[in-house]
């Protein structure tokens, strides 16, 4: 009977159900700090189970190529995961998203070449898996290029970009319709059949890769968290579509779970910027020059620089300090010095908290990862809505390489492009130190009136050097 169960795939399908259950539990446990590590392990067991039983299935006649792929891919993945620096995490996540998408695209293509009879449902699934997989792949590669600074991180816009994007989407839909229905417009229009399904597939791949590029190049550095979360969602949806191609439930369940979690993250990121997803995708935020926002008369007063010795004196007397990190902390790799400063302040009898804005950095949770790497306990990390109500009681806010997420214009200046965005209201603290390289404006060229406030002091220089300077003042 057991043999029979093997032969008619009952055993395999039961194992797929178990694998789906493990994914569900794993993902659930991943969303709480105490159980997250176990959750990841549970979900990896589900994956192992799914892969092992697939290898047992009777459709498989040869193992050599599978093993080459498994061992090769696994080894590269393991090396990358072990050697990657925590500061490079956004790039790695982008790249892995892209490979997942590419893999789904290839599964769909491989299935088309294996198709013996024309089958409408299979064609629809192949078409959709190809499009989502292709967009995920090329979009992720562009995101990777921008994050790793192989490409300029600024939004890249050209005239007619939206029209071109719209045109590509239209062409894709048309082609998808042709691909599925076998009714080729070219045949009707020109009276000859110059295109068949396999050529159509190649065209589909080319166009979806192009669409991924078009969607990713207008995204600026500060909007990266949104696009990374969205691509994460796409990588799940691509797997889900591949599930329809091969008629396999475990792909559909796992893929749609990932799709949903990615969409939830995307939504959190958009809310944290008070912008819609469409605005992020097509707004080209930060590409425009700052003419609309930096009216000459608007920002008044001079910036007040401060040196390390004077900052130390203020910090030494403070009884509560809030550290607000941003992308600048990642760039200068200041997280370890920041943790050291935090500990010295605590030893000095001061209450230290870290306020993390959801979109600080280049991917969701970027700052949390860096601070965790530097061994900062996660229970001293607070979110903006928790710390804003008690901001008046805080003696010193130290803003380290953050800009837009602390910009008071988001509350005060209706003409500001970021008006309405929930920010960390550091300007309400008694004193604000802003650690910044120079007065050059941030990614979007948006003026930050925080720098000109009465209670703001600018500590110019590399964030890591400034923080280390403060640390040595405390030690001496």
């Amino acid at each position: 009977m057991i043999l029979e169960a093997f032969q008619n795939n009952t055993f395999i399908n039961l194992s797929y159900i178990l694998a789906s259950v493990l994914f569900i539990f794993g993902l659930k446990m991943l969303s709480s700090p105490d159980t997250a590590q176990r959750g990841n392990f549970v979900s990896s067991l589900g994956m192992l189970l799914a892969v092992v039983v697939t290898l047992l299935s009777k459709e498989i006649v040869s193992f050599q190529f599978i093993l080459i792929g498994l061992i090769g891919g696994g080894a590269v993945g393991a090396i990358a995961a072990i050697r990657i620096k925590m500061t490079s995490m956004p790039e790695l996540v982008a790249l892995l998203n892209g490979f997942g998408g590419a893999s789904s695209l290839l599964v769909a293509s491989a299935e088309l070449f294996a198709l013996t009879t024309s089958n409408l449902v299979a064609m629809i699934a192949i078409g959709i898996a190809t499009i989502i997989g292709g967009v995920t792949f090329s979009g992720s590669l562009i995101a990777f290029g921008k994050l790793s600074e192989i490409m300029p991180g600024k939004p890249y816009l050209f005239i007619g970009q939206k029209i071109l994007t719209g045109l590509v989407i239209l062409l894709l839909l048309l082609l998808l319709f042709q691909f599925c229905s076998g009714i080729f417009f070219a045949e009707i229009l020109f009276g000859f059949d110059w295109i068949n399904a396999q050529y159509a597939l190649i065209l589909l791949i080319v166009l979806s890769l192009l669409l991924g590029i078009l969607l990713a190049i207008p995204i600026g550095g500060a909007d990266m968290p949104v696009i990374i979360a969205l691509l994460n969602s796409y990588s799940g949806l691509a797997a889900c579509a591949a599930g329809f191609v091969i008629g396999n439930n475990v792909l559909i369940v796992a893929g749609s779970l990932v799709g949903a979690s990615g969409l939830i993250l995307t939504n959190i990121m958009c809310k944290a910027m008070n912008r819609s997803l469409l605005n992020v995708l097509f707004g080209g935020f930060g590409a425009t020059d700052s003419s609309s926002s930096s009216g000459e008369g608007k920002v008044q007063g001079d910036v007040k620089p401060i040196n390390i010795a004077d900052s130390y004196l203020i910090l030494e007397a403070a009884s509560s300090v809030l550290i607000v990190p941003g992308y600048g902390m990642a760039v200068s790799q200041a997280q370890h010095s920041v943790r050291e400063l935090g500990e010295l302040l605590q030893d000095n009898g001061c209450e230290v908290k870290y306020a993390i804005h959801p979109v600080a950095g280049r991917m969701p949770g970027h700052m949390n990862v860096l601070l965790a790497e530097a061994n900062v306990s996660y229970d001293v990390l607070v979110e903006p809505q928790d710390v804003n109500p008690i901001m008046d009681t805080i003696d010193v806010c130290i803003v380290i390489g953050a800009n837009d997420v602390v910009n008071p214009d988001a509350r005060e200046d209706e003409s500001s492009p970021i008006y309405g965005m929930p920010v960390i209201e550091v300007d309400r603290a008694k004193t604000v130190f802003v650690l910044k390289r120079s007065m050059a404006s941030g990614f979007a060229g948006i003026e930050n009136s925080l720098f000109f406030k009465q209670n703001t002091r600018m500590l110019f220089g590399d964030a890591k050097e400034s923080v280390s300077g403060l640390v040595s003042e405390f030690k001496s």
Partner: protein
Amino acid sequence: MEMMLLLFVLVLSIFLGFELINKVPSTLHTPLMSGANAISGITLVGAILSSGGDSSSITIALGTIAVFLASLNVVGGYLVTNRMLRMFKKK
């Protein structure tokens, strides 16, 4: 009919996904993303079937590349997530 069943599973799983993860502390945003990404490497199952099946060489070739990329995605995703989560400690 089989198509209908697959669609049924799809719709239920999407709802399940939204219910499952609706409240995530921001501390876990990155690991959740990379852990979820590793799960999306489940497409590896389809890749294995293409790569080892009794079919044309082009299917096998495409399948093998897919196995390579999906394994990279799965192994890399789980390991790096684990590495990050190990750092998240309450002191």
